[in-house]
């Protein structure tokens, strides 16, 4: 099994007070954890790649925990999440798909069994490529106020033989959410959707 070799980690946090409207009583916070790892499959086609998902699990947990820590340490404050990957140009999109299980389940575990599917996106790109990581409510995907996205990226990553992995957590709705739909207060939270 290939070893997970991390070149760089980035943690970023945004605190949003307003967006031209009333100042939020509690600012919205959005945090992203990024890790740049060597792509063990860069440069050639490998049929068997699934095993790497298990190798990525400890890194997924570490990133999820670092997000909770940077948001203050209490998993209860997390209301939205998302994940993504940018694969360097010597890799393929399928290598990014290896992040679904270790990235998603790490966050659900750290958040105490969140119900909703973790929204995700991925692409192949060069250093400095930006990724709009989609965000949805952690227990009910249809909560309209929590649909959001956070742009992430690193100037010097991913290099051709690297993968940039991303996890994102948020503490609430868009700062001036007002387009109706299912509210967080109406969640049944059984099926992960409503």
């Amino acid at each position, binding site marked *: 099994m290939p070893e997970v070799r991390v070149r*760089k980690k*980035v943690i*970023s946090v945004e605190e*949003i007070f307003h967006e031209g409207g009333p100042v939020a009583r509690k600012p919205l916070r959005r945090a992203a954890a990024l890790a740049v790892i060597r792509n063990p499959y860069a440069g050639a086609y490998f049929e068997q790649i699934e095993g790497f998902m298990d190798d990525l699990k400890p890194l997924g947990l570490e990133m999820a925990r670092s997000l909770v820590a940077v948001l203050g340490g209490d998993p209860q404050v997390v209301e939205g999440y998302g994940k993504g990957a940018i694969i360097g140009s010597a890799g393929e999109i399928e290598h990014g798909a290896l992040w679904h299980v270790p990235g998603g389940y790490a966050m659900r575990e750290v958040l105490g069994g969140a119900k909703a599917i973790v929204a995700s996106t991925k692409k192949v790109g060069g250093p400095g490529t930006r990724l709009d990581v989609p965000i949805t409510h952690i227990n009910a995907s249809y909560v309209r106020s929590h649909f959001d996205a956070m742009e992430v990226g690193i100037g010097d990553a991913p290099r051709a033989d690297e993968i940039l992995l991303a996890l994102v957590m948020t503490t609430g709705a868009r700062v001036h959410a007002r387009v109706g739909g299912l509210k967080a207060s109406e969640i049944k939270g059984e099926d992960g959707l409503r």
Partner: protein
Amino acid sequence: MTANIRKIATFMEETCAEMGRKIDPPTRRAAAVAVIENPYARQFVEDLSGLMTIGEELGELLTQRAVAALGIAGSAVESYGKAAAVGEDGEIEHAAAILHPKLGTPVRRVLGKGAALIPSSKKRGGPGVVLDIPLGHKDAAYVRSHFDGMEVRINDAPRANEIMVAIAVTDSGRPLARVGGLTKDQIKGEDGLR
């Protein structure tokens, strides 16, 4: 005049390996960025003292945030830098008013020292513009291992009537620095240069 802050973002970056070589301990740097309303957008104002006061306010706030992101004492910071991006309805002089007259004093107060000039850059641009914050050793500008730069950007800032203000701090120089020059253990730290 106090700043009308829409958003504060922090970025913490840790380099664990480079060219396959382990960096142990990792080099770490952090930036804190505020997005504020430009009170002088779309008009020529002769007296920019309001923005100078805002510079003083942000100098303290952003340095505290950036140092907190590194999780170290202010006195352990090794290098620093500052930068600003003015939205399209402002002028470059607005960035100068924030960065130069009053911002440095609170930065040095938070860090305990800072004999060297704080390297800076500024520009005008639209949302998503990239700020390359120059970095130099805080007590001796000639320390060659600490010449560096940190890229930051926020996809939705600066809007036309906004200014983005950034402060970066580090606990180290470049990873694998090896181009000679003055080293940090040779610093006299009196004139800010050597």
